[in-house]
């Protein structure tokens, strides 16, 4: 049992774009950190510890916590810990922040995730994350395995590419309501996705997430401190992590079993019996259109192979029973080290009722998901009151 209730009390994020040539990494991190501190009415000295995360080798740099994390994070004279777990970097950061405050070790913790993807070669960097002898020769970064997953999913459940394309239409349409989102497309339609180039069958260009640059910063506080800071913190109800085998090919690469395992744990702890009814909004980590179909099934939102029905029936659309990715999701914005932290931050924004045009009405409980590594899942459930 957690020693302390933990609330999110401050959030900052940059406007995500494909290139931020106007700033270096510390300058970019500073924007999000400054915004989060302002949001919580805190000074750097009020923060007890810093957690920072990105995937260095995707940008061809190393030990970034030393030369990027100390000044801008702001880690000067404070404990700083780097967390880097691939696609789940942001959710590992988010969950580590929770542990640091829930345990009673620190009262207030600042968590920063970021990436400047276009300054490096993400596909090249991702290949170096895999086994040098067995996997690197044929691996094509993240999209190759994601294409295999989509191929197996469409074949097993007889799902059409048009059904997957509806996910991109929904999410990039939603992104038009999020001023921070990278790809905002209020007029997107199915043809736009279906007519885009096939880059790794069955993935078309617009079935895939972009490469984004930007940072996200989130401030955590224990209950006593959180109540002093604001009257609407987003409270942690549960967190869950499930990791899988080491090689990408140790098991079939779809149906995301870790999402099923992690969601059962997270729902049980948070008292969620039927996620569609009991959750009000979900920020799902969908690197491809196909992934949202499969991941929402694995999270228990739909039967296997029926993820598309959630969109067709309007359930996961804005105004539906369980809107998925009001922010625009990963298909709109993907700064890798910040991507999964954005899922938690956006879930918190919804719980706090601060989503403006992307706000879902009357959110009491929200889910944020991280995906990455070798089919890893991390989940956070937030609520507008502490779970007692």
């Amino acid at each position, binding site marked *: 049992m957690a020693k302390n209730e933990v609330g999110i009390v401050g959030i900052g994020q940059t406007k995500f774009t494909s290139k931020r*040539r106007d700033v270096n990494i510390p300058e970019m991190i500073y924007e999000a950190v400054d915004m989060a501190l302002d949001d919580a009415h805190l000074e750097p000295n009020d923060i007890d510890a810093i957690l920072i995360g990105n995937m260095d080798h995707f940008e061809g740099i190393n030990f970034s916590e030393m030369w990027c994390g100390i000044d801008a994070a702001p880690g000067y004279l404070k404990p700083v810990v780097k967390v880097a777990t691939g696609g789940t970097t942001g959710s590992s950061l988010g969950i580590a922040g929770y542990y640091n405050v829930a345990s009673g070790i620190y009262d207030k913790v600042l968590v920063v995730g970021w990436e400047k993807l276009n300054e490096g*070669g993400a*596909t*090249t*960097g991702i*290949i*170096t994350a895999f086994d*040098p*002898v*067995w*996997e*690197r*020769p*044929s*691996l*094509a*970064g993240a*999209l*190759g*395995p994601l*294409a*295999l*997953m989509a*191929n*197996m999913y469409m*074949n097993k459940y007889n799902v059409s590419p048009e059904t997957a394309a509806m996910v991109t239409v929904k999410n990039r349409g939603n992104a038009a309501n999020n001023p921070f989102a990278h790809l905002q497309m209020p007029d997107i339609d199915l043809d736009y996705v279906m007519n885009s*180039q*096939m*880059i*790794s*069958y*069955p*993935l078309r260009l617009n079935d895939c997430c972009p490469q984004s640059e930007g940072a996200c910063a989130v401030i955590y506080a224990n209950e006593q401190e959180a109540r002093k800071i604001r009257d609407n913190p987003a409270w942690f109800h549960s967190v869950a992590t499930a990791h899988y*085998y*080491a*090689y*990408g*090919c*140790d*098991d*079939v*690469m779809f149906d995301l079993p870790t999402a099923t395992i992690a969601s059962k744990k997270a729902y049980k702890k948070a008292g969620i019996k039927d996620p569609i009814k009991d959750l009000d909004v979900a920020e799902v980590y969908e690197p491809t259109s196909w992934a949202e179909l499969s991941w929402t099934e694995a999270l228990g939102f739909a039967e296997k192979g029926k993820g598309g029905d959630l969109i067709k029936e309007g359930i996961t659309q804005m105004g539906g029973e369980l809107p998925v990715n009001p922010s625009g999701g990963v298909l709109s914005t993907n700064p890798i080290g910040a991507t999964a932290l954005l899922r938690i931050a956006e879930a918190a924004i919804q719980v706090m009722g601060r989503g403006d045009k992307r706000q879902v009405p009357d959110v009491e409980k929200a889910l944020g998901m991280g995906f990455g590594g070798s089919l890893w899942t991390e989940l956070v459930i937030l609520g507008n009151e502490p779970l007692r």
Partner: protein
Amino acid sequence: MAKKKHKKKAFEIRWKTDLPYKYSMGKLSVKFFKVLKEERKLLGSKCPKCGKVHFPPRAVCAECLVLMTLDDMVEVPSVGTLVGFTVVNYPFVDPQTGGMRPFPYGYGLFQLDGVDTYTMHFINEKEVKNMQIGQRVSAVFKDKDEMEGNLGDIPYFEIIEEE
């Protein structure tokens, strides 16, 4: 102020250097490549506790936390089933060579007969319409005198017709 006709080129530093690394691939892989080169056979590793056959050979069974040794290596057939496929059709730098990886190329997930895990590798097919999940496939070996004892000795899998 007059508008600049051409954007000034950003400050750029270019360099080229060798960064040699060594990698110890482990006892099981050493034996795998030795047997591949000398006998043109494939070896997997079988968990002595649960019996799960891993290919490529793995040192530890994740579910049992049991160490597999050279004694647990078993021969596996070079034929199996196509489980998933794609045709990679985008450019990127290959960290194995430092140059661009040639594309498009076929890439698949295979399950060899009698093996419990899956194998990612090239497939010598670039036309999606010629591939189907469930097709029978076979690993293709280089000629014996060209074998070097690395994964390149199996350049790709190919789709086969079986009687």
